[in-house]
Every structure is written in structure tokens, then in C-alpha cells.
């Protein structure tokens, strides 16, 4: 159906050249034959038809390519790098939880029924170790070929074995010494210090950095994809305009040559071109908007909360470390405050002020303190989340998280007051109630946080789903539209060409 440029000329029916005097220039430019061939009306109609059809095919190709890029962008974010990146945040959480459980068991000493009990804590340790192993496998496949991160993953894998040896030694020594609750055996403490130091200087930083890097990969993929789609959009728009222009040219030529006012099929083709181009552009813009929403409000937010949750796991374990290592207690208290500040920052310099500040935040939410006079407001993983709640149910969930976090800090205040009053037994009880895996204060916080994270995970799934939906109709609309265009062009020129048979 597509005519080629080697259409045989029909000299018998040739009309005079459009512009008088052209005959003279034919010999001069040395291409008389081509000029001569194109001088016939049917040849010109054919040429304009070929140009129009080529433009239609160009429109189809550019639109198909760009739609494909948009689809694969959604696919990578929704089913590839996105979920994998989410899985890497699990690594940090599991490692932090392992060290937390060891600290709890050491603190319990001979009283195996404190909180949810020694067996439970050891079971949680095993479960976290298994999750860490799984996350490491995931991370290993994700970072394969990524020199720097691959090596980080390998080093965490190696380090985990060494950590476990130290942790086991600490538990064994404490058991052998028959240490009472809160009175950790000196040898056991020495081993635990080595273990927790190793965890905090070698394992956790690398695990965290691997997670950050997978976020960076997602961001780079996303931005590259968006840039490619934007460029594709410009192509689609440009080629669409070229189709319109060529159809217009054909229309004008037919009108001048054949003195027909309208060529309905060609007018139809112009209309279809406008609809097709605009439709593809709108679909791409809308899908790209959904994809960005899935990333920003969905994945990035969920990952940031997951990181905040992992840091909080380490933070609450500082309570146990504070109690079991009196020599380093000041240090652990300071570290507890610093980790708290990472989760939810307020401009205060000690724990007493921090408790008050957090109580204010929880009480006044959704109003937030600060914002002027050198007060940066609420910052940190939770604090920044709190600034705006765009998703349905987000504000309510966030209020629950802040409430649970405040309760965690309230219990911390009780714990440290008990220590100050010399009531170690009470302090250990408070700690074990915080750490209780069933109805502990921290478990309640984790549950509230999980609820909030779920809101963002849903936003992520929803964004990907809507992005896909915006594109899905075009799998058949685009080829159908392109075929329709070719058909209309054919219908438009065929009767005119027929006049020359």
C-alpha cells in the first residue's frame, strides 16, 4: 500500500510546470530527470502521500518507543529496583534487632521470666538472624557488579560470623557466671562490648549504606527514565505536528490541483492525528505523574520510615546497654538521645528537655511547634514526615505513631529516674516491659509505625497501578490509530489518483 519514490512517470498526461520558466533551470541543475518525474501531478500526489505516510509511521514509532520506555520505567520501579531497595532496609533492622536481643538477654541474667522471657528473646534473635541472612542474599544479588556496594555486602556477611561468635561468648560467660539481673559478668561484658562495637562500627554502617545506595539506584533509574520519556514526549509532539503539516500540504495541493474544496478523509486523518498525538502525550504525562507519586509519596516515604524504625530499634536497645554497662552509661545515654534525635528532632540538648519537647509534639499534632526564631521545627525521620499529610489516613496514623513514640520516651524517663533513685530492679522491669515482644511499649510503637508505612506502601502500589492503567489502552489504541490514519490517507488520495488511470 505504501508507494515508493520510483513510481513510473506518466509523461503523456503531464501538466505544465507549476512555475513558468522552470524548464530553463532543468538543464542547469543537472537533475532534469528527477525534476521531470516530479513535475507530473500524480507523481506529486504520490510524493506528498509518501511523506504523509512516513510521518504517520514516524509518529507510531516514536509513540510506541516512548510508551515502551514509560512502561519499563514503571516496571523497574514497581517490580524491580523499588521492592529490592525496600528489602535492603530490612538488613539494617534485623542486625540492629539481633544486638538488641543479646543486650536484653544479658540484662535478664538468671531471671528468665523478665518481660516476654529469655526464650522469647533468643527466638527473636534467631528470627532476626535469618531475616538478616535473607536480606543479605537479596542485597548480594542487587549489588552484583556494583563494586563498592558488593564489597560492603560481602564484608557484612563476613562480619556477621565474627559478631555471632562474640555474642555467643558473652551469653555463655554470663550464664556460666550465673549473673543476676542487671549484674552482667565482667568477662561477658567485655565480650559484649566487642560485639556491639563491631556491630556499630562495621556491620550497621555498611548495611545502612547499602540501603542508601539502593535508594540512589532507584532515584537515578527514575530520573533517567523520566528524562527519556520527556524527550520522547517532545518527539511525539514534534512528529505529530509533522504529520499534520504533511496532511495539510497534501490537502492544499489537492485543492489547488483538483479544485475540490474539502477532502473529508484527509480532514478526518488530521483530526485523528490530533487526537492520537494529544492522547499519547496526555497518557505519558499522566503515567509519569503517577510514577513520581509512587516514588515520592510511596517508596521514598516508606523507606525513610523503615530507616527511622530501624534506628529506633537500635535506640531502644541503648536502654539495655545503659543498664548493663555502668562504666559506659553516660555514653549510652548520650547515644540514646542522639538516636532519638535522628528519629524525631527537636532543638534541645538533654533528655529531660527532649521528653518535654516530644510530649508537646504529640499533644499538639497536627499542629507542629517551631518554624521561626531559629527553631527549625520538627526534623528527623518522623519529624519531616509530620510536616504534611497528603494521603488519606496518613494524619491519623501519624498521630498514633507520635503517641506511641511519646509513650516510649515516657517509659525512658521512668527508667532513668529509677536508676537515679538507685532502684535497679525497677529500671530493669521498665526496660523489660518496653522490650516485651507481645505488648511492650516498643512493640506498640512498631505496630503504629507499620500502620503508617502501610499507607505509603499502598500509595506506592496505587501509583504504579494507575501509571500502568494510563498506558494500558495504548497498546492497541496506538497501532489501531496509526492504521486508521494510513487508511484515511489512502482513501483521501485514491479517487484523485484514479482520475489519471
Amino acid at each position: 500500500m505504501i508507494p515508493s519514490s520510483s513510481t513510473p512517470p506518466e509523461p503523456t498526461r503531464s501538466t505544465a510546470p507549476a512555475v513558468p520558466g522552470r524548464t530553463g533551470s532543468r538543464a542547469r541543475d543537472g537533475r532534469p530527470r528527477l525534476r521531470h518525474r516530479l513535475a507530473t501531478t500524480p507523481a506529486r500526489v504520490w510524493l506528498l502521500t509518501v511523506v504523509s505516510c512516513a510521518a504517520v509511521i514516524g509518529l507510531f514509532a516514536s509513540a510506541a518507543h516512548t510508551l515502551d520506555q514509560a512502561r519499563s520505567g514503571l516496571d523497574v520501579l514497581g517490580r524491580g529496583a523499588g521492592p529490592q531497595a525496600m528489602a535492603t532496609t530490612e538488613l539494617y533492622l534485623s542486625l540492629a534487632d539481633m544486638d538488641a536481643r543479646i543486650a536484653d538477654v544479658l540484662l535478664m541474667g538468671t531471671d528468665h521470666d523478665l518481660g516476654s522471657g529469655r526464650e522469647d528473646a533468643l527466638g527473636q534473635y534467631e528470627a532476626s538472624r535469618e531475616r538478616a541472612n535473607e536480606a543479605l542474599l537479596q542485597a548480594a544479588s542487587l549489588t552484583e557488579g556494583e563494586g563498592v556496594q558488593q564489597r560492603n555486602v560481602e564484608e557484612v556477611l563476613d562480619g556477621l560470623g565474627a559478631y555471632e561468635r562474640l555474642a555467643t561468648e558473652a551469653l555463655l560467660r554470663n550464664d556460666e557466671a550465673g549473673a543476676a539481673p542487671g549484674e552482667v559478668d565482667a568477662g561477658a561484658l567485655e565480650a559484649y562490648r566487642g560485639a556491639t562495637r563491631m556491630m556499630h562500627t562495621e556491620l550497621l554502617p555498611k548495611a545502612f549504606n547499602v540501603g542508601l545506595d539502593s535508594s540512589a539506584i532507584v532515584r537515578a533509574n527514575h530520573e533517567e527514565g523520566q528524562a527519556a520519556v520527556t524527550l520522547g514526549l517532545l518527539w511525539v509532539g514534534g512528529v505529530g505536528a509533522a504529520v499534520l503539516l504533511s496532511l495539510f500540504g497534501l490537502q492544499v495541493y489537492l485543492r489547488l490541483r483538483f479544485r475540490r474544496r474539502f477532502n473529508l478523509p484527509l480532514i478526518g486523518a488530521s483530526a485523528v492525528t490530533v487526537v492520537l498525538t494529544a492522547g499519547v502525550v496526555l497518557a505519558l504525562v499522566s503515567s509519569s505523574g503517577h510514577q513520581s507519586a509512587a516514588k515520592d509519596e510511596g517508596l521514598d516515604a516508606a523507606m525513610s520510615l523503615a530507616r527511622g524504625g530501624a534506628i529506633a530499634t537500635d535506640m531502644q536497645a541503648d536502654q539495655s546497654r545503659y543498664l548493663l554497662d555502668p562504666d559506659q552509661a553516660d555514653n549510652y545515654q548520650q547515644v540514646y538521645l542522639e538516636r532519638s534525635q535522628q528519629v524525631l528532632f527537636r532543638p534541645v540538648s538533654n533528655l529531660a528537655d527532649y521528653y518535654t519537647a516530644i510530649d508537646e509534639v504529640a499533644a499538639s499534632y497536627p499542629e507542629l511547634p517551631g518554624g521561626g526564631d531559629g527553631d527549625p521545627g520538627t526534623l528527623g525521620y518522623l519529624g519531616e514526615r509530620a510536616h504534611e499529610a497528603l494521603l488519606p489516613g496518613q494524619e491519623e496514623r501519624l498521630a498514633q505513631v507520635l503517641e506511641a513514640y511519646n509513650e516510649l520516651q515516657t517509659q525512658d524517663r521512668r527508667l532513668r529516674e529509677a536508676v537515679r533513685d538507685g532502684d535497679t530492679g525497677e529500671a530493669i522491669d521498665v526496660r523489660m516491659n518496653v522490650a516485651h515482644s507481645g505488648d511492650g511499649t516498643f512493640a506498640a510503637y512498631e505496630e503504629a509505625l507499620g500502620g503508617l508505612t502501610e499507607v505509603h506502601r499502598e500509595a506506592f502500589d496505587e501509583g504504579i497501578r494507575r501509571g500502568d492503567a494510563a498506558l494500558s489502552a495504548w497498546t492497541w489504541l496506538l497501532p489501531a490509530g496509526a492504521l486508521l490514519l494510513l487508511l484515511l490517507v489512502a482513501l483521501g488520495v485514491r479517487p484523485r489518483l484514479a482520475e489519471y488511470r
Partner: protein
Amino acid sequence: MRFRHRRVAAAAALAAAAVFGLPACSAVLGGEESLVDADSLTVGVKSDQPGLGLETEAGSGEFEGFDVDVALYIAERLGVAPENVDFVAVTSAEREEKLISGEVDMVVATYSITPARRTQVTFGGPYYVAKQDVLVRADATGIQGVRDLEGLSVCQGAGSNSAARITEGLGIPVEEVEGETYSDCIERLSSGRVDAVSTDNLILAGFLAQSPGAFRFVNNPFTDEKYGVGLPYGDIEACEAVNNAISRMYQEGDATEMLDRWFGETDLEMVYSVPQFEGCD
């Protein structure tokens, strides 16, 4: 900072985008400048901290120290040769301002990452996590822990809140003395006018390396000071590239070499493993 010109295509697309009036195209098409495209850098460093950032001769424009080495390493990883890195002196108070005004492209100057600063500056790293510690005279055997400082005089640099961390943070009453600079504090400690100097252990180690044996650490580190690489706010691409460079600096042993070179003579307990990054967004 000069830029490599490699974005002709992007610029053309950008022009087209402007014509079509599509929103957000400039961001998507890389219309924003990033340090990763720079082929020269101006880096702000300290000029008065031995071992970290020290101007070798006043006004010479030549600097040396751990921060300087870190900056050169990162610059190289960003594709900027050492001869294209200009160092300028910055004081603690002017770090944000110079970064925001564009006077410097990067700050590597014992610049602690804090949540408040992160609202104005994008931080790569940290490249090292220092701890706040206390330096006392080597013969002051009575001071074994930070609690032994009760009632003694502790010197801190102007504008620092190190001593407040002891008084307010830990509830230990000490007499706060403010020196003009840390060199000033060290002189006072040396001559017996103050009992202790409190700040980051890496800064203290730099002074200790200058006069080994004169002082010692109380060795009771009680806060994390995360030394970050200050970058123009929002330059996430550069931040990720800086983090990658820091990871390699540790993995390939360069960090160990640098730390040993500047602080190896002291009894500072160093960490030779990559720190936990803060994240770029």
C-alpha cells in the same frame, strides 16, 4: 567551579521543552548544575586546626591535614585533578554562608552534620565520626573519667557548645572557660590556666600530635560528631558521588593511611571502617 560541556543534547531538548511549555522539564533533563560535572572545585577548609586543616604559612593559601587529604581524594573521584582544587579558609561560623553564596563549592572543615544544618546544606558522608572527648595534662592523674571534671575548669572554643554537653547533657557542673580558638585553649591547658579542653577527639588528637606526651585523653567519648562534606543544598547527585568516593576511600585503605598519617602518633582510638552515611535527601 567550571563545568564540562557535555549537555548539548539536553540543552536542545530543554529549549524544545520551553517551547512546548512542558512543566518540570528542566529538572528532568538535567538543567540543574551538579558538582559531578565540575572540572575545578573551590573547597572550604579550616586554617587553624593542626592535623585537620592548617594553613602551612599564614596567607600562603597552602593547607594540609586530614580534611585536606579527604577533599583531594573526593575531588579526584569526582574527576577533578588536584591542581584544579582551590582551598580557601573558612571559620566555623561562615561555613553555611559561603556554601549558600557559592563562594565555595564544598566544605570539608570538621563540619558536623546536624538536623538543623541539613535544612540548609546537603551533606555527603560523614567521612569520619569523631567523638567529643576531653584532653588533660599528661600528669593530671586525678582525672580518669569525665565525672572527675566536676568543679574543674574546661576550655572550649568560641561559639562551641562542647562544655554545655558536660554540664547540661551529663549534669556534671564544671567551670566553662571560653578560648578564642582551640589553640588558645591548648595554650591555657599547657600553662595550667585551665584543667581540661573539651571538643572532638580528632581535633584534640591534631593538637596532641604536635606535642606528644604533653597531654592525654580522658578517653570517655560521649557524643558522635559526624564530619560531613558540605555541598550546595539539593545537589543529590554530587552527594551520592561523594558517598561512593568515601566508601572507596575506606575499602581501598586510603582512609587508614590518612588517619595514621595525621593521628597515628597519638593514643586516639580510631575507627578504620566506613561510617554510616546520613543519606542525601
